């Protein structure tokens, strides 16, 4: 019965959309020598996290003998497990990563640190607080797209839901609650009045920048050579901001893309999940954003899949078989929808290249095993983005040299085009990924 129900859902939600690709804005950087994100090839990032992880026994491929001295085994011919079986059709587009975590504990509270590696309670002691990878990357591409990032999810669920996105100030990015609101953001035009207010603000900021350039120029005569180099830093910043404002101002006049279908209404997370993925794909395809984050949280209600029980309660299955079966049904559904998303990104093209090759997709959870409330050995999948795929990287959990999961984030940020060699607790890039 539940199978049947699910198939109906997919048909209903699986709208196929093809849009002409959004014309590039063709904006050149202010200074020809300065390489800026605007000139670089487009990179995109999608992070997806669920609230309760995956039942490990049904998720992980059967363990092979650890025969490495390095604490890392790379497998190509691994057999997928029950929950992960749907990955078969896209397995060459992704890498399964096992054995990593953030070294934190805290049960459900650690879900919040899945994308940061830093618990909220430790945020104060970190230079960039508990900033998450999506928000960190967003700072880098601010102004290039209409939205520098979109976070979609819900507040409900134990301890306030997934809470996946955090800024460098240690505050949470409030999520767009559902397809209805996301659709509005992506396709509905801004009122003339709002547009005028924003345009006025840009104009004002532009005149401030003109004025301060004058102030800086008059400053020069007081400075010796090393001071001048410092002031150049300021002047370069002024030019950089002018460029960013220019980009943003352009977005004001660019009409939003046409809506590919009628505005949807929010239903429930189970039914909305495929639609949310479709809207994210559209957001990327129309270059409305380069970065999206999806929280699959506590409002994911098993009943909508025809399964009895509460998601959180089921995750504490206590080894009862029927509960585990129910849980596997939910989890398989989540994997299937992820596969559908990857498939979709593979079929969309930009510049003769599948969109998936420019889009790195991270899928996983801050929960390793919800039944025992552990945050170790997190389920992590990395798809697309131009990485080498079709394999499993299994890190030895006992190894002293096991890297933190944040090393994966450093690798992702570098692939995204950001020159950084660290992120939160990282010790380098992720071994074996390149």
């Amino acid at each position, binding site marked *: 019965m539940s199978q049947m129900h699910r198939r109906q859902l997919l048909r209903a939600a699986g709208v196929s959309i093809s849009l002409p690709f959004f014309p590039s804005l063709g904006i050149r950087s202010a200074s020809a020598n300065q390489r800026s994100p605007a000139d670089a090839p487009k990179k995109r990032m999608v992070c997806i996290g669920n609230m309760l992880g995956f039942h490990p026994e049904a998720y992980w491929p059967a363990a092979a003998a650890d025969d490495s001295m390095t604490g890392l085994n790379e497998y190509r011919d691994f057999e997928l497990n029950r929950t992960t079986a749907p990955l078969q059709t896209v397995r060459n587009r992704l890498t399964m990563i096992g054995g990593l975590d953030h070294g934190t504990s*805290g*049960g459900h*509270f650690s879900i919040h640190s899945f994308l940061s590696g830093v*618990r*909220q*309670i*430790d*945020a*104060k*002691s*970190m*230079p*960039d*607080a508990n900033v998450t990878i999506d928000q960190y990357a967003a*700072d880098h591409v601010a102004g290039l797209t209409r939205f520098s990032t979109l976070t979609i999810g819900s507040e409900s669920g*134990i*301890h*306030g839901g997934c809470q996946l996105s955090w*800024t*460098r*100030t*240690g*505050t*949470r990015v409030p999520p767009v609650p559902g397809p209805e609101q996301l659709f509005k953001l992506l396709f509905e035009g801004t009122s003339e009045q709002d547009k005028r207010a924003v345009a*006025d603000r840009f*104009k*004002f*900021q532009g*005149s*401030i*920048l003109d*004025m*301060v350039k*004058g*102030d*800086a120029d*008059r*400053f020069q*005569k*007081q*400075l*010796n050579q*090393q*001071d001048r180099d*410092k*002031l150049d*830093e*300021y002047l*370069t*910043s*002024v*030019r*950089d*901001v002018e460029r*960013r404002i220019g980009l943003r101002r352009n977005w004001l006049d660019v009409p939003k893309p046409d809506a590919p279908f009628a505005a949807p209404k929010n239903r429930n997370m189970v039914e909305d999940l495929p639609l949310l993925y479709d809207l994210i794909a559209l957001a990327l395809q129309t270059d409305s954003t380069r970065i999206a984050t999806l929280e699959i949280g506590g409002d994911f209600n098993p009943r909508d899949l025809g399964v009895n029980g509460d998601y959180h309660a089921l995750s504490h299955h206590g080894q009862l078989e029927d509960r585990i079966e129910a849980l596997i049904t939910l989890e398989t559904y989540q994997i299937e929808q992820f596969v559908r998303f990857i498939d979709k990104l593979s079929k969309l093209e930009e510049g003769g290249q599948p969109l998936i090759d420019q889009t790195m997709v991270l899928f996983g959870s801050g929960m390793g095993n919800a039944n025992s409330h552990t945050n170790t050995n997190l389920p992590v999948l990395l798809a697309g983005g131009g990485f080498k795929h079709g394999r499993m990287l299994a890190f030895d959990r006992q190894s*002293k040299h096991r890297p933190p999961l944040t090393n994966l984030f450093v690798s992702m940020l570098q692939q995204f085009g950001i020159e950084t*060699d*660290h992120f939160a607790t990282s*010790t380098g890039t992720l071994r074996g990924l390149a």
Partner: protein
Amino acid sequence: MIRPLRTNCLVACMTVIGSLVLVPLCHTSQAEELPNEAAKAFLNKYCVDCHTADDPSGEREFETLNFSDDHWDTQLRLQEIVDQMSLGAMPPENADQPTTKERLLAIKQMTQTISKMRERTISTGGQSVLRRLSRREYRNTVGDLLAIDMTMFDPTIEFPADNLANHFDNFGDALVTSGYLLEKYLEAADRCIEKAVAPQSPPETNEWVFNSGFIQQQELSRAHQRAFDFKYMVLYDHPLNEKPEGAYGPLPKFNSGVPVDGIYEVKVLAQALHRDSPYNEATIAIDLSEPFRLGIRPGDTANGDMVHTQPIQPLLAEAAIKDNDLEWYTFRVPLDKGFAPRFTFENGMHDVRGAYQRVFRNHKDTLPEDVRRGSGIVEFRNAVIKYGYLPQIRIHEIRLSGPIETEWPTRSQRLLFDGDSFDPERAPELLRRFASRAYRRPATSEEVAGLLAIYEGRLADGRSPLDAFKDSLKAAMCSPSFLYLSPPDDSQDVKLSDHGIAERLSYFLTSTMPDPSLRRLADEGKLSNVDVLRSEARRLLNSDASDAFVADFLDSWLNLRALGSMPPDPKDSRQYYAAGLEPEMKQETRLFMRDLITRNASVLEFLRADYSFVNRDLAKLYGIADQVPADQAADFHRVRYANAERGGLLGHASVLTVSANGIDTSPVIRGIWLMENILGSPVPPPPDEVPALDPDVRGAVSIREQLAKHSESAACNQCHRKFDPLGFALEGFDPIGRKRAFYDAKRNIKIDTSGVLPGGDRFSGPEELRSLLLERKEFFVRTLTSRLLSHALGRRIESLDRPAVDRIIAQVSEDEYPLADLIVAVVTSELFQKR
């Protein structure tokens, strides 16, 4: 690739230049070249055979290595050679081997050369580089410039963290400006000015009463509904819990907070319950000997949910709550628009979530029979909250009213308008006034013209005169004249102007812009007069404004800013979290330094004092709880140590925590910390390939034995003998500064705090080490003086500054270096007035 800090590495193998406890620092003058003959001969004899350009098997070539070229590349190559030789990895086994003496001499010469090169490449030539306000300076400055209350307003919260150089956050060359930061400046200026000019009409006073429907966090709802139908707000956990439950009591249906900035009166009808709880301490993890303290911390739904920790939540007020008897408590607290008060149990339980289960495990008999069979956290919670004896603060009613004592127009408005309201006729004059304050010197006509152009442009855009005025103030706050400290008037000048001196003095001693009387002296051109400067320094030092100096200087000098970046294991150090020890540890060190300033006492007290300032949490940590009464637990008291083991800075929990790594101590890390911050001898990093020691507290191996092992290597020992002993002296203190005699819980591995300094002086523990340090007090005094100068000038103190540093010290050496006099001597020194 940036080389990571190797603080976790227990092996360091480079010679420390001119350092060491026993040898006086011998600084070579800048021009002098080091002899490298032995090193060059060594390379020629043992290395160049393979490492030539035409032999690829050597992978690197040393023929072109030029010892007088400072380039980074040379430094990296030399460092690599030193590392390989220290490890004994080179020359390879099958090649000719140098004698140990040859090897050590070559290593020594090369490391000295590298250190010298490094100093030269980062040198700013004994001058401060044009520097912008640091994040903390910006925040303090806008508070004073606009007369706004900064308790819960932080316009810098989105600024990127400032780069640190030797722990200092105010070095001009290290402080960078980026496009990202400039965008944040634009946003911050907007927020600050809008806040300063609001509200537009006199605020009305309101009263809100809350006496039912106290719905707290979701997890508690079922239990609170069953137990008392939300009639009370009940607080259990202390606010710093990892998984706070009942730690923050929000006001029901008051999520949008107060409507306007102001002082509000909060009346709370409350009682403390179950301070006589029958549960043992392991179950409820709380100190029942202290009266329960109710706190008020602000919360804003824009910053996070109201029942969890938020990024801005200073403790606004606190009171001890009477046991059992219901009583009204009245507080006056500042609240910014949008913030609501939240109620906290400041010395509450640690982990009430675990306590539910522990009550079932340890005290089942205290529960009614029909609930004893419960299982799972939900049933445990429901039962224990309804029938148990959890220590708690129970609030029955809350009355919030305000704003009270409103000033209208506000102080900010009167300051910006120079009157009760904005008069567009006076716009040019008001802009000149504001810019001259913001820029900390008279604004030039061109600058004022620029601001006026903004004003008129905004009028032309259709903005109201007041809005246009606000916009031009925002523009001033993005000008380099506001963001950067004033350099001398001409590029050829070395001496600062009077306004430059005033600015330097105020950012040194008050961490903010000059106050009106200092500014007046600058305007009158009187600060070049050393007597005037001296009396201004004394005035500021004696005022509360210099508390910011004490706090910021200690953060930079002792790296106390890093406190908290290596949090200890919550299991072993519950106290650390339960008591919120971090700020208290800092407070101890601040009060200690403040006291030295007030008494103008000797800086040597930093090393030898047998007293300190502690509250009850710290007293408990130090094992002297009897010296601080339970009913004055939150106050800091001056205490004297009977036992000389703990004393001076080296006994402060702040220092002991920041020089450990949180989880375990390391004599190497603490030793290096002492070398750098107390003795002023920088320690070069260890070779990259040396693995960190793995602390092993299970068996018979102590860290001393592990270190002894690798000290058998002559190359390693060359450095380790200099700092390991210093660290050993402090091994009697655990990672958060508690005394200990054994490493392990089973008391098998005894701690040995004795050591031998490189010159042969022996000590048995911290007390004797302190005496040996006092015998070499010049090192400490010079370190402290250099750090004070660094903080004042915003730059590194280099070897060419040595004569100036010595002249400062000479002025105060007679009376054992009184601290206030030393600080004043820094201000009146020739360096202070120079670029």
